[in-house]
């Protein structure tokens, strides 16, 4: 497996091998699914749209529907205006969404199609909404695309209509799973906090099978709530890379004060999330939530020996792995390598600060890097565990290192759409996964005389 990857890491400037990121529009498509009765639309040639639907479908094992402008060569010469106009009219006639959220691709961006102008010149049916985000695939990553679409929701929809701000907090959940959004909402509910969350893909991409297909499932943030978010008292943007832009836009447009925070993954980040919500909104700390936190601490103490001191290499999307890195440090593990494909110096700085505070002088952080480098660096400095998405499985197999699947995409296991990794509950689940992975590996590789019944 991966026989041609040798240990000597060397910087490359032309070739990416096994990327740890993908392109913008898929993130924008995912974000758009977090609006109720919204159909994502891809303004480019149709291959992109098919690929993005395919990848999201494989991750969620749920229908992911989106339309496309289906560029031909002619459209590349003359611009995609008529494709988009006809496309929008067909979409409203045939599929009747309330909202269409357009993303672009490297094709329409390179051509320079003016989406705003095209939308303005289109007869959008009464009561229907079209929003759009520019998502050039040659900048950033899928996380950037998610962020751009979240920002577009604010730009096109949020309105500051009241003199006085409401007692509602807007939560930008970031590029996380429907299960995570559900868990964040459950936590807020437990504390009696009023909130609006968008995008919100819970009940959109993890739907029940009832024998009846709903093209627009019951979930998704309602248009009127997104509009109303312009009147909210503050916004909490979870995950700098995926949510910060939307929060700043909401500040700029509607004077809603933003608070940029880590994804609430692990105990410290969850504590901060809880504290911020209580502080903003004067809710009461829920006894149930406090109980859950205590259970988490109990397990952290009880089984620390399963993972304390173990070396771990982490890759994935910046917001998820920033919080994961903090959590594994809190578990007493040693993150020797943290890597993302998404570009960003801010990421490297933040992780480096965590390393410095934990006294981890030999640990390495890299942004804009690929899994070929990740593998090379693991060969140079072996680890006990890998945390990352499905694309880590080749390395895990090649080096016989257990893999804990966290992040996006996970194409070969189930659970991520149904069970959270955020909050105290999610932290418990991460510990369970880490502990199981390490112990399963031990059980499989130890000698017979070291094989334990109780662990």
């Amino acid at each position: 497996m991966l026989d041609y990857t040798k240990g000597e890491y060397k910087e490359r400037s032309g070739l990416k091998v096994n990327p740890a990121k993908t392109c913008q529009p898929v993130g924008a498509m995912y974000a758009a699914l977090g609006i109720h009765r919204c159909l994502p639309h891809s303004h480019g040639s149709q291959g992109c749209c098919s690929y993005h639907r395919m990848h999201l479908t494989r991750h969620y094992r749920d229908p992911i529907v989106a339309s496309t402008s289906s560029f031909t060569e002619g459209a590349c010469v003359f611009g995609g205006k008529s494709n988009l106009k006809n496309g929008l009219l067909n979409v409203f006639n045939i599929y009747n969404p309330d909202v269409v959220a357009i993303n672009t691709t490297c094709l329409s961006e390179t051509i320079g199609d003016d989406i705003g102008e095209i939308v303005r010149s289109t007869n959008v049916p009464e009561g229907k909404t079209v929003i759009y985000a520019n998502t050039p695939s040659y900048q950033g990553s899928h996380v950037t695309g998610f962020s751009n679409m979240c920002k577009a929701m604010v730009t096109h929809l949020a309105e500051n209509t009241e003199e006085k701000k409401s007692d509602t907090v807007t939560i930008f959940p970031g590029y996380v799973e429907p299960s995570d959004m559900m868990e964040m909402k459950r936590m807020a509910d437990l504390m009696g906090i009023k909130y609006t969350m968008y995008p919100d893909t819970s009940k959109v991409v993890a739907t029940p099978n009832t024998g009846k297909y709903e093209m627009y499932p019951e979930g998704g943030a309602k248009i009127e709530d997104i509009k109303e978010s312009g009147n909210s008292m503050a916004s909490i943007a979870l995950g700098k890379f995926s949510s910060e832009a939307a929060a700043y836009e909401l500040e700029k447009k509607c004077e809603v004060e933003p608070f940029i925070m880590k994804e609430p993954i692990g105990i410290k980040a969850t504590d901060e999330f809880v504290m911020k919500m209580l502080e903003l909104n004067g809710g009461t700390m829920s006894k149930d939530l406090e109980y859950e936190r205590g259970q988490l601490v109990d397990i952290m103490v009880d089984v620390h020996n399963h993972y304390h001191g173990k070396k771990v290499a982490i890759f994935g999307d910046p917001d998820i792995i920033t919080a994961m890195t903090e959590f594994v440090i809190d578990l007493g593990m040693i993150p020797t390598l943290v890597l993302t494909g998404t570009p960003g110096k801010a990421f490297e700085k933040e992780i480096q600060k965590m390393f410095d505070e934990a006294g981890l002088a030999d640990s390495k952080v890299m942004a804009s890097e690929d899994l070929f480098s990740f593998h090379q660096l693991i060969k140079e400095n072996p680890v006990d565990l890998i945390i990352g998405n499905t694309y880590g499985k080749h390395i895990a197999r090649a080096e016989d290192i257990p893999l804990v699947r966290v992040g996006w995409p996970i194409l070969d296991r189930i659970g991520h759409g149904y069970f959270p990794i955020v909050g105290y509950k999610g932290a418990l689940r991460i510990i369970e996964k880490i502990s199981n992975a390490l112990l399963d590996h031990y059980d499989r590789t130890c000698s017979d005389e070291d094989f334990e019944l109780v662990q």
Partner: protein
Amino acid sequence: MSELKKNADKFLDDLMEVYPAKVMKNRKKHVVVKEGAGQEIAANTRTVPGIITNRGCCYAGCKGVVIGPIVDMVHIVHGPVGCAYYAWGTRRNKGKAREGGQNFLNYCFTTDMQESDIVFGGEKKLKKAIEEAVELFQPKAISISATCPVGLIGDDIDAVAREMSEKTGVKILSFNCEGYKGVSQSAGHHIANNKLMKEVVGTNDSPVGKFSINLLGEYNIGGDEWEISRVLSKIGYNLVTTMTGNSTIDEIANAHKSDLNVVQCHRSINYIADMIEEKYGLNWLKGNFIGVENFSKTLRNIARYFGDEGLIARTEEVIAEEVAEIKDTLNSAKEKLNGKTAVLYVGGSRADHYQGLLREIGIETIVAGYEFGHRDDYEGRDVIPYIKLDADTRNIEEITVEKDEKNYSLRIPADKVDELKKEMPIADYEGLMKNMADGSLIIDDLNHYETEKIIEILKPEFFGSGIKDKYIVHKMGTYSKQMHSYDYAGPYAGFKGAANFAKDVEAGILTPAWSYLTPPWNKEPLLKGKVEGVEEAC
């Protein structure tokens, strides 16, 4: 299905009721209710924007389908990261390294173009990427596949390929398969065929054994090619190369030395089959490796082509032996599934190929269609002279080849070929429609709306299609099997493949989960308690 035949007009109206006039006019040409012979269908035309097609692009057809499976090449995708990423390990073209050879199928290579590459051009980065690929991997050959922006910004990947090939000594093939070319994956097949013909086939003259054949248009999804070649070698054939499942660049280069091309996927590879015949005199035979009857017939045709008594006898022995092993599995599936109906909507060939196997387990195909088949894939190759190229496909290069005087030879005499043509599809394919029953529905470039409608109206028990519609169909209470990826199983080709397929379909249709769609409180009277939103318990 006779009902559909009687009410064809009403059915079509129901199917299309929601379309705006212009769209309806367009779509009606792509839908045919089978009645007799000689019906025409519109195909290979541009996709209606906003209709929610299942189609992909030219890049997918070229790199994803035809070029990507070649195991010992480094396939560099020149473009932003997405195109390379989505084609990484998602199409299950399996492959192994040859002894002493290489296999890069688990790797994904891209130039990961950035904004500056769009602005200043990406040729420099591409050259650097090739240098790094050679240094790190020392591959036998390299491919460069262009993606959407490459054509727009004017990067000359052909020139880069020439220059870098000279510089590094590695064979470099460039493919101008920008996603916007043509109207579907199909354009990419054509572009890939052209390049393989121009720069690969005929460049290796290694000797080949007796009874040599090539498999064309077979991509070893889930190990299909291994199962087919297992049976072929058991009979006594030598497989020179497959295009392109589990193939190597040198093997493809040697294809012209073979005695016969057997074509599985007509759509993707017919160009090269024709060109090899023209240039090297090698006949091609349309085969079908799916289903016991089709596979057996193909094996018998191959044996008769060679006309060797030993081969013919051995073929019958092997068929008998293989069928004996799997017949219980097929019979038991048939007992449970008999009378069920299927919809098949797959790329450009499987919607035809699987109908026989489904019939063998008791399932009749009532609707079939392609994403990107051409009229000849539906109506048969006889219509090729009458197909008009439209503006969207006219720019896909047509190449012509000439007889290679040195290497041209007829493997069997021309009059013998003419005789055989009466009995078997040599250089011929009769298309999907011919074998479908009157009253069945043929539909091209099926979209999301029509998929829902067809399931609602026709209520099939089996929907064979792809990942994008699989879960939509499941939510409607109908089993959907992925006929591209085989739901991560396989092989489905050949004899053992037929048994695998039968078992998987049986499990899919009969899995106990289907009986739980309706919760008990919605179907049984409640003694105490009530269901929210319902006035009275029934």
